[in-house]
């Protein structure tokens, strides 16, 4: 297992406070994404625990893209990953943010 941490600044806080949401399942080639409001002084913090060791640069690229699409602030994102591909990770992140913003669970 490998733990990776990313932190982004310059995002926008949600207009209304949101409740924590969990999206996805910890299964082979899949991941779960927990999105929680957190007092992070405006930062968006992502902590990834992944079974696929040695892919930090790819995670960095996927998370950079994610923050460009969804510039969040004061949000903690926690991920348990079992070797999901970058496309699956991006899809789950989009689903997770949609649920967090009050879309479908």
């Amino acid at each position, binding site marked *: 297992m490998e733990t990776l941490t990313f932190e982004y600044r310059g995002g926008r806080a949600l207009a209304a406070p949101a409740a924590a949401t*969990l999206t996805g*399942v*910890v*299964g082979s080639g*899949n991941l*779960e994404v*927990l999105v*929680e409001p957190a007092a992070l002084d405006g930062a968006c913090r992502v902590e990834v625990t992944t079974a696929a060791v040695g892919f930090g640069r790819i995670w960095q690229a996927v998370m950079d893209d994610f923050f460009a699409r969804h510039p969040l602030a004061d949000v903690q994102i926690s991920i348990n*990953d079992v070797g999901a591909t970058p496309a699956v990770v991006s899809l789950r992140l989009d689903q997770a943010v949609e649920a967090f913003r009050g879309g479908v669970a």
Partner: protein
Amino acid sequence: MSHSYFEANARERLAQLLDAGSFRELLPPGARMTSPHLPPLDAPVAFDDGVVVGAGTLDGRPVLVGAQEGGFNGGAVGEVHGAKLTGLLERALDERPAAVLLLVESGGVRLHEANAGLIGVSEVMRAVLAARSAGIPVLVLIGGQYGCFGGMGIVSRCCDAIVISEEGRLGLSGPEVIETTCGVEEFDSRDRALVWRTVGGKHRYLLGEADRLVPDDIAAFRAAARELLDTRPDLSLAALEAEHARLGRRIDRFGDCRDARDIWTRLGIAAPERLPLLDTAEFLAATADRRA
């Protein structure tokens, strides 16, 4: 619009099974109540340890619910996972809900966690019996991809009633386990038709092990669970002895059958070979009054 129970994950099932917006999770993912046994094995954890527990309403009546996530280690019961189910059932003794609903999807004990998982399952069994003894129905729903096997198969048969779909499977040893221990001549786990006519929902319903057979639709599971809320089984000694006698007659009647089709023939079902092809409504019509 129909929503497949089989395709949904544990959280999606709960959201549609209960009254809209009524579910309140206990120990939600943010509590990070994860397995202490998986990190030393360098194995991934899940924030809910593969089971969602909480309270909600069904048709306005309060229920406690637990839903196992088959996608995480096949829904296997580890120490935390088992403790969440046990705690839910013990909570029922205090809250006295209309019922406890267990959405079981599990291969049984999480072998990574060895004795802790085994003890966890036995504690769940004891808690099921305590809830039943207190007059609180414990109802099981089975219809996920991973079926209901091992310790959770025993737990499920310790409960008041089982609702199952054709896609659902219920047993003790799963097909791969039987093949591994007894040989492919005894049971070919890759023969899907054999697997489903042996452990699948239709056969379990015909044998009397499942109480309701429903289509693969969360709304159908909801309707069946709602009807069963007023289940008040007779737990007297006389009733238990009658059940034992019934099981004795069942083994006398079918013990020499080599295949489920032999049992269906002996049950007097016309053209038994067509049963796997029938949809739920046709199947129920074709087998009415023919259950073991």
